[in-house]
């Protein structure tokens, strides 16, 4: 066995070097949009958003066609940067994900097409204005301002002991006809229930 291994190694010493180098340099150029490098915090939050999609069910009438997509809307400055863009094209609940950025202005009418709305901490007024409009429209709203849940949001991120945790306003989720799995409710640090 050892001899065999050694023969392999001496082979690789001579022959493997150039192919490896070639492999690394001859790659195809991929144009990359210059977006901000997200902090680990927002990478974790983006990853949590992706996970939430597996534990929240929308009412059947929302997705009329099998080809309907789940649109994730970012409202306000995109602090998630690339981390959110990664989700583009992924699949959750058998549906393709698309990501839309509403960095400049927020038009409540877009609520018809957003299935997930993420609100940036930097623009709390957008959340305050929009949450009442979205309340009955089966949109999973996610935010991080301290009053997000009392304003009518559904999931709020918060930082506890250097980790990202979340709270759920289950009453609002029910009002939006979203089925939140018991597992997600269990993992939340706090659940607001209307009952």
């Amino acid at each position, binding site marked *: *066995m*050892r001899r065999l*291994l*050694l023969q392999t*190694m001496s082979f690789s*010493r001579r022959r493997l*070097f150039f192919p*490896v*180098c070639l*492999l*690394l*340099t*001859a*790659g*195809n*150029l*991929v144009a*990359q949009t210059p977006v901000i*490098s*997200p*902090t*680990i*915090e927002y*990478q*974790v939050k*983006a*990853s*949590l958003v*992706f*996970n939430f999609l597996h*534990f929240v069910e929308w009412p059947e009438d929302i997705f009329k066609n099998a080809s309907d997509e789940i649109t994730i809307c970012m409202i306000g400055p995109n602090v998630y940067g*690339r*981390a959110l*863009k*990664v*989700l*583009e094209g*992924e699949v959750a609940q058998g549906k393709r994900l698309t990501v839309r950025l509403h960095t400049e202005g927020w038009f409540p009418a877009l609520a018809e097409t957003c299935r997930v709305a993420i609100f940036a901490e930097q623009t709390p007024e957008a959340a305050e204005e929009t949450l009442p409009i979205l309340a009955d429209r089966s949109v999973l709203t996610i935010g991080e301002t301290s009053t997000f849940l009392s304003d009518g949001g559904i999931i709020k991120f918060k*930082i*506890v*002991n*250097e*980790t*990202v*945790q979340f709270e759920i306003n289950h009453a609002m989720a029910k009002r939006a006809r979203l089925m939140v799995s018991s597992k*997600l409710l269990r*993992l939340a640090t706090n659940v607001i229930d209307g009952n």
Partner: protein
Amino acid sequence: MRALIAGLLGCLLFTPATVFGDENPQLAGLDIDITRLSIEELLNVKITSVSKRPEQITHAPAAVYVLTSEDIRHSGVTSVPEVLRLVPGVHVARIDANKWAVSIRGFNGQTANKLLVLIDGRSIYDPLFSGVLWETKDVMLENIERIEVVRGPGGTLWGANAVNGVINIITKNARQTQGGLVAAGAGTEERFINWRYGYELAENHYIRVYGKGFEKDPGFVEGGADDRSSMGQAGFRYDGTLTNSDTLMIRGDFYDGSFGYPDEAARGEREGKGGNLLGLWARPLDNGGGMSAQMAYSHTELDDPVLGEVRDTYDFEFQHDLPRIGDHEIIWGVTYRRTHDDIRSSSLLGLTPDHRTDSVTGLFVQDDIALSRSVYLTVGSKFESNDYTGSEVQPNIRLAWRINSTDTFWAAVSRAVRTPSRLESDFVIQMPDGSTFAGGGNMDSEELVAYETGVRFNLTKELYMGVTAFYNEYDRLFTVEGSTLGNRAGGNTSGVEVAAVYVPAASWKISVGYSYLNMNLKLDRDSLDDPSTRIAGTEGQNPEHQAFVRLGTRLFKHYELDVAVRYVDELPALNVPSYTVADLRLARRINDNLELSIVGQNLFEDRHFEWGGNQVTQVEDSMHIKILYNF
């Protein structure tokens, strides 16, 4: 061989920022795999890193390097010292098949004594000789969350003996390790099995239990060697959230192992067993600060033909992080350690008294001052009182300029000391001629004043680099003065360390490390010591140059390929030539719960020396197969 390494390095470093077969270019530069982590895992990701106070590693005003659990899994290695080979500037040498010499910035030896090593905040160095018996301090690698390595003095926060560096091994929160895991492997040099099982005791209360065992074959000596070893270890970790947001962590380990010497007839066998228990309570304060208290107890028994040691150590630590007030952010804390030993002497070596209780009391305070939005000044000091040299002051001053969100320039001046060990202070050796050679009960501490500067920056979005330069001035280093020890040597060391991480895509990671070390020690004029052993001997146990390249990639979705090549310069005092070896790992993920891997270690050379002297064996190339199963 060197030409090959240089070529490969060049080829990797100067490749344009593109990659062949890139599945998703958007993933470039991300730290986590966004679509693969579970909620449970995500809820435990620390979004900051530690310098006693959580702080972005990119902004830490020190030479910090972090190995993550993924780095460790990709390395394919099976022991903690081998993991440390992946850190730039750390010199790891295998003395025999189970004993290690590990040091940072020089002064390496089997009892390398200028390095502080912590497991979950508990110091594991042995006050008997101020070093770490690596063979007995094992951690199940799958339980490690990260290893933080600080090159340079850490005395201000961690106290005496954190002279040249601090290695902090941090294990995963029990909440992160729910369910079961078995990792088992067998190969040409070792067999091992590691397992753990974690469950929820009640809401917000988690525990895991683990066990591990291994047996390792002897190293190589013409005619056969006896340095085989085996060990069993088991333990647990509990993590809970109490009322309000207080957290409590309790952990413990128990181990028992035997560690052969290369020539058993002449030197016998070393046995080690022991256990430890640690509790950490922490309370975040509403205003942004926090408080924590930690208590630890450890019991160790070492049975070596030359010396036996039974030791009980109690540690207590309290820390208070004040919230930022104006431009100031203050941390202070108190530490207390009490250690009791019972020594069994042999005809070769004795200690007087044969049992002794020592205590160390300390206070530290540090202020992080925001001079402007981007310039931060950290001043602090530790004040310690010990039973060997009385009181010691270890101040430092650090400046960080946060150029932008990723780039930081920093500079620091620190003082650190190494207090005499129990052995250095109290040993007695009867010389063949009837005279006595005995410890220097009145010795002073060894002293270091370190000047360091460094920069960390993103050269491109995909290439992250850190460069550190240091100049260390040592004084009152230990010497042999006739029939006792003294403090009559000094000198300086200097060096440069480079670390680079290149992530052209989420499925590719290339890490490069290089370090240069120059040691320039000298005896004081009044010293009676022999310069060829004390000076040339100390200097020549450290490589002038070290370098490594690690490449990890995911292939065809289910395969992982990892290659690590490392070069270590010669150790002239030990007649150890330079060497270049490679580790290779190929893993296949069968499904979400099962991974198979084949690992080759120390390839390129049939065998090589990493250390010199009498009881030393060569490291042979090896391979093993490993199965990793989650349930």
